[in-house]
């Protein structure tokens, strides 16, 4: 066979077929793509910052490595204010101190601003049983929207090995095959979403805490006052018990999660991603989960976004009223739409 030229530089002779992309590339281009897989010089990267140990250590490590190895990244702190009095307001004070300590720009986006509802208001309507569903769905979308406002290329979050193992267990217990396939990847990127990664996928919680302790990092450690996600709590305790008996359990579970292969027939039955008709965010239905939850809240039928029965009841009450509060239309990330209003340092 005649020598082939590199698919990237079209100049040098290809020396390797990349397993991930099937591209035939030359040695120099291989080094370049391999070394810049995670970050490229000039990338704008938002660190999802809650003030807790994981994201505080992540912000510190990102800053340190960026300076030590000249990654050339522009780093931002991005915090979501769920509106939980006595919890998030205190932890945001920690993030504001981190902003000073690490001299990084900070953007705070609140549920109130985005959805018109604070978690305090949501809990007073839905009670403490399903509030974690609201919070989880709203946070995910808020992070993407905050990142889009910052015009960043990439969001990094502080999820550690223990968190990922916990999520693997929960997805298995719920039979959530689609999520099981996704939850162990370090880096995910959908078509319309900003690249997200979890640099601490293999870092044990113990290491994160010891790192913060030895480096005397300033973090906030109080449990959310609404935290009755009992299911996750049980998974967490179970995992800690396993780890006490055999420390490799955490990595073993992550490995098991990675080793699951979804059969093509099953994949075919999974819903394709589209965009939400109301707010433009990615969704597997006409309406995204956040819009469904918000409509339920606004119409006083909070169950609508949680159970099928609630959903049917909402639909039977007729279409959404014209003046329904909705989420601002999502601007998919693209360079140049950054309208940044940062917190004053």
């Amino acid at each position, binding site marked *: 066979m005649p020598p082939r030229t590199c698919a990237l530089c079209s100049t040098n002779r290809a020396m390797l077929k990349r397993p991930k992309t099937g591209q035939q590339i030359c040695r120099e281009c291989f080094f370049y793509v391999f070394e810049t897989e995670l970050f490229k010089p000039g990338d704008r990267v938002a660190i999802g910052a*809650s*003030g*807790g*140990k*994981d*994201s505080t250590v992540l912000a510190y490590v990102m800053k340190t490595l960026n300076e030590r190895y000249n990654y050339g990244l522009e780093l931002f702190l991005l915090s979501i204010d769920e509106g939980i009095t006595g919890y998030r307001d205190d*932890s945001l004070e920690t993030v504001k101190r981190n902003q000073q300590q690490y001299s990084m720009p900070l953007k705070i986006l609140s549920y109130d601003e985005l959805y018109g509802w604070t978690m305090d208001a949501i809990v007073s309507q839905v009670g403490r049983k399903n509030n974690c569903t609201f919070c989880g769905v709203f946070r995910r979308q808020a992070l993407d929207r905050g990142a889009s406002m910052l015009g960043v290329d990439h969001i990094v979050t*502080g*999820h550690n090995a*223990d*968190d990922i193992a916990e999520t693997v267990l929960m997805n298995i217990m719920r039979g959530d095959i689609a999520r099981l396939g996704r939850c162990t990847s370090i880096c995910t990127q959908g078509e319309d979403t900003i690249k997200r990664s979890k640099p601490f996928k293999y870092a044990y*919680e*113990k290491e*994160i*805490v*010891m790192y913060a*302790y*030895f480096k005397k990092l300033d*973090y*906030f*450690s*109080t*449990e*959310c006052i609404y935290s009755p996600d009992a299911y996750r709590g049980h998974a*967490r*305790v179970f995992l*800690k*018990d396993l*780890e*006490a008996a055999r420390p490799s359990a955490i990595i073993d579970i992550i490995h098991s999660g990675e080793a699951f292969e979804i059969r093509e027939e099953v994949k075919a039955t999974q819903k394709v991603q589209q965009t939400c008709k109301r707010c433009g965010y990615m969704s597997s239905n006409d309406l995204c989960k956040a819009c469904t939850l918000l409509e339920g809240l606004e119409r006083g039928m909070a169950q609508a976004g949680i159970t099928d029965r609630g959903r049917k009841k909402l639909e039977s009450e007729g279409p959404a009223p014209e003046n329904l509060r909705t989420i601002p239309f999502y601007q998919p990330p693209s360079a140049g739409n950054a309208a940044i209003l940062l917190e004053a340092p």
Partner: protein
Amino acid sequence: MSESNVSLKVEFSGGLELLFSNQRSHKVAVPGTVPTKYNDPSSPSKPADIAFLIHYLRDNLLKERVELFMENDTVRPGILVLVNDTDWELEGEGQYVLKEGDEIVFISTLHGG
């Protein structure tokens, strides 16, 4: 048991301080010699160790929710213990014999992300 007390500095963090009057740092003095079986004076004596200290803290300093601090006679999984800044797993864990002036730190890893 005439031996004098051992004074220690005990610290709680990572959210554990909430169980101890929301105070991070405590000065504690424990007897130098204690019964092998906690609170059973008829059992043979031993020098006070961390296993004893954990029970002592539960009975003397802990204010609420013992299940978040102890499980099966030791600290609950997910709580790190440091002896003079060293991981207690390198110091014999519960069997580490307390010395005058030791700093013992308990950190919960279970709170917040």
